[in-house]
């Protein structure tokens, strides 16, 4: 049971990572002059949309968190709306935090906001897919011994990795190398993406190696 679950997780994560790679490659066939660095904003949009859509589809297909009771259509709609509001709020919150960390306030607002959207896709959207719009569950997952399934462990790892990646991505900005990727927010978004991908790959492996120690509380 557990092995099968880990394999499913690995497959899903690999699919996500593959989709990110594809977003960097495929659009250049359709769009004239598309490169990740040159038309970074377009790539940010494409990447966020693709990863978001794939996550939602995977969530619907795999159903890692079985909801205990069946809900009516109206409830589903309200859940969906709530998710949308949460996602938007997290974008705003990320934007505010990024600006407080030193991003320019007025110039390049679009870049900052799209970066915030990307970060939200990597973190908040995952939480929304797996845990639903339920803040208490989020709080529980992000504390020690809080994860209750391998999906939640994976969520912990990918979220922390993407945020760490974004943080490390800020490091090359002051260097005087004059590379195109040192421009705000390219290095940060690339860092977040690489962090997310690393998290996606690390998570199943880590769970596999620690499966003896990982005992999840059953409900």
């Amino acid at each position, binding site marked *: 049971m557990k092995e099968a679950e880990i394999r499913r997780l690995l497959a899903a994560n690999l699919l996500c990572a593959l989709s990110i790679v594809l977003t960097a490659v495929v659009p250049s066939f359709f769009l004239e002059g598309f490169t990740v660095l040159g038309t970074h904003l377009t790539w940010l949009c494409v990447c966020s949309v693709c990863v978001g859509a794939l996550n939602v589809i995977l969530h619907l297909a795999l159903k890692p968190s079985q909801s205990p009771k069946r809900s009516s259509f109206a409830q589903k709609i309200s859940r969906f709306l709530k998710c949308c509001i949460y996602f938007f709020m997290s974008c705003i919150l990320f934007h505010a935090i990024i*600006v*407080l*960390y*030193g991003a320019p306030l007025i110039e390049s607002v679009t870049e900052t906001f799209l970066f915030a959207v990307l970060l939200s896709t990597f973190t908040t959207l995952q939480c929304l897919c797996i845990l639903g719009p339920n803040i208490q*569950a989020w*709080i529980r997952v992000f*504390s020690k011994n*809080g994860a209750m399934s391998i999906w939640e462990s994976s969520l912990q790892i990918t979220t922390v990795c993407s945020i760490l990646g974004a943080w490390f991505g*800020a490091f090359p900005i002051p260097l*005087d190398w004059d590379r195109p990727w040192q421009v705000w927010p390219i290095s940060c978004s690339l860092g977040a993406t690489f962090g997310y991908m690393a998290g996606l790959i690390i998570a199943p492996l880590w769970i596999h190696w620690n499966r003896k120690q990982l005992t999840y509380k059953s409900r």
Partner: protein
Amino acid sequence: MGDDTWEGLFPKKFFRSYFFPSFNVKDLHTVDDGILQHLYPTVDSGEWDMLIAHFLGVDHCGHKHGPDHPEMAKKLTQMNEMLRSLVDHLGNDTLLLVAGDHGMTETGDHGGDSEKEVNAALFVYSRTPLFGSGPPEEPETIPQVNLVPTVALLLGVPIPYSNIGEVMAELFSGDGDTVSAALQQLSVYHINAKQVDRFLHSYSLVAQDLPAEQLQHLQELFSSTVEEHTQLLAEVQGTTLVPPELESRLGSLIGRFQLYLREARAVCTQSWARFHPLRMVGGCILVAASCLLCYVASELATSSDSFYRSCLLYPLLWGLMGAALLGLAHIFTQEGLDLLLVSSWAAAASQMGFFWHWWVQHPKRARLVGSQPPLASSGLRQRLRAWLGLAFPMGILFFRCGAMFSDSFVVAEARVAPFLLASLVMLLVGKLHWDGHLTVPESPKQQLLGFSSYRKDIWYLLCLVAVLLVCVRLSGFFHQCREEIPQCRPSLFLSPLASLRNTRAKNLFYLLCVALLAGLVYAVRSWLRHYGNLNSSDPLVLFVRWGFPLVVLCIACYWAVASSTDDSLGKLQELVQVAVVAFPWAVYGLASVGLLLLLCNPMTVFAKDTRESAGSIVTPYLGVPSSEVDFLHVIPQIYKRMQESQKSRLERGSCRATVAAYGLGSVYSAALVIALTLLGFLLMLLHSERLSFAFLLLFLEAFVLLHIHTCARGLAGDAEPFSVPWYAVISWLLAASQFFYSTGHQPIFPAIHWNAAFVGFHLDHSTNLLPAVLVGANTFASHILFAVGCPLLLLWPFVCEMPNSQRKKPKKEAREELQEVEEHMMEMRLRESPEKFSVALLQLGLKYLFVLGTQLLACVCAAMILRRHLMVWKVFAPKFLFESLGFVVSSICLLLGISLVMRVDCAVSTWFSQLRLR
């Protein structure tokens, strides 16, 4: 005539002189008007060989108003007029040299090495034509040292002995044909080269620092050129006939002389910047060992009592002994005593002593641990956990130190420090969350659902963090620029109000600044009132009540006078001159009176003795005529303490009486807060007016940091209330370096605020010490404030102690259960265990020194390893100088802060003993 520095440099060397006081940069006109009054009569009188007129107005105007100001335009127009009319007064055989000794930065300052500062104009004029050809399109640049031989030879005096400059040959071409001009230039070059060769020769006999092979090469070049020169001269003189290729030979000879002079200069400049690798490594090792010592000592401090004597006193004796031995050896060998070497050997000896004692003690403790095997295994796990807990603040410190090794990061440090500070605080919150300190312990029902909810005070913590982040971000608006980032514009707030042209904006900013000062005073006073420290009628409290507003009034008046334009006040000019000096002196005086009062009697406690009445515990009247709100505020803060002896004696007499003391619970912090506020006023006075916003942010951020620290402590439930965790110390220091930048400073020389030396001094300084202190205080303002405030990190959690979040040691709990009423012990908990208190202070100081020392070590290592880096003189060396000065200032202020706390402690002890006697 002009600048009176000439008189100081060459006393009684001038045939006639008109000197004027020059040191006050605010005074634009005295020197220039004085010169203009005497210049033309002197020129026309013709009683001179050389006339020096040193104008200062443009320089002072740059300092006061900056390069783009109407005042500067006026000054420059005046200079243009002066030149125009001076030219008319010149004779045909007069050469006019107009030279600036330096340029200026965007802000009008100089003293650094940026392109804009070291470039200045040179204007040469004579009525008789000087140049054979027309002037070149692009004016060429010449080194400033070239002026020396040129002027010397033009005046017909020998070139100064130690000159390494090169004559400006164009001025010696005369009015003959090209060949005679070239011959004349050649002779001039010959003289110049001879002088340089003589200097190099005698220099190399005395000092060995010029590389021998290069000297040899120069020598050969010189002798061959001179030989050729004499040969050519002989040819020219021997034959009246002009040799065919004379012109080209002359040209090549001149070229060789030039080559020689330039190479000689290059050799000198290169080798006069040389390094002592051995001393560098030694210094690095000393600093590193000191850091290690601080770390080890801070870890050891809690462990044993004999620690002080064995590990701190003996090594000191060792060090003194080593120094004495070295001194004796030097006396016997009759060698010159190198103070630096002796002190470093003494330091090394004392460090050896420390580590030796530590090593000797170490096995003992290891055996002690080993005797209890069950504890050892859990100790290992605990130690591992402690290491992991250490890893996160130390990781931030590691990044901070690593950033010193890259010139880009040093240049961008103004943004790196806030980034790391924000990350540290966010990590702290994340870690608290991860450890589950932020959530309420789960009830069974919640466990069933798998939900967790937050405690109430999480919102408080999050608000604090948000305020901190906003403060950090806002403080970035007060940045100064470095020339390495050309697109950077310095913050508008850095320029003094006097440079603002829009009167309405000026008034608005002025009012805002004054309001801000008043707000600061109000905040401090209400804080003190809240903790009941404003009730007594001691001189110090009276000073806080009345002196603080007075200080603010004086500062406001000073700003008003200083920011007014020169000509707007007309007849009141003299009054203004007096006021500009008087108000800062009033502030200095008041602040020093306040600090003296603080030292004499730092107790801000109001004691209400009710023993005579032997009545109720609740005092009917609070002693201060205060409003109902104050009344409610003060009551919960009453710290009622019955002395043990008193209690037993009185209980025997079966009458219950108490002493109600107001503000005893925060007596330490109150003294520190008062001292910090006074220092803050002084430092604000030294900065330009609008930087008081930055100071407000500084105080706010420090306050918020202390609260976050307290809050995190309460939530994490630390078992050890007397030790300050590393993250607090590191965040405190990060904030200190952040505000170094946010008060408009940069670790480069052009960015020093020289204006600070003239706050309260209209005329010349008699000594160099006072301006140095003023400029130093201005530069290291944030270092000073944060270092003095460092003990607050220890005290604040006690001050903010709330009954519900109180975490007592289990030992204490048992005793306090007996008492029905929960007491607000606050800082008096520190009094209960004096040894622990002093150990905690020592530990805090050592931790602070360790973090400071690590930063310094990183700077030192960067400057040492990268000493051949392209940017070493622009980035690493100034950074190293500023960092080491900051280290010295911080250490001194840290000592002062700790000694202030100890002074308060003594005062509290005497207060208690007096109470007991009564």
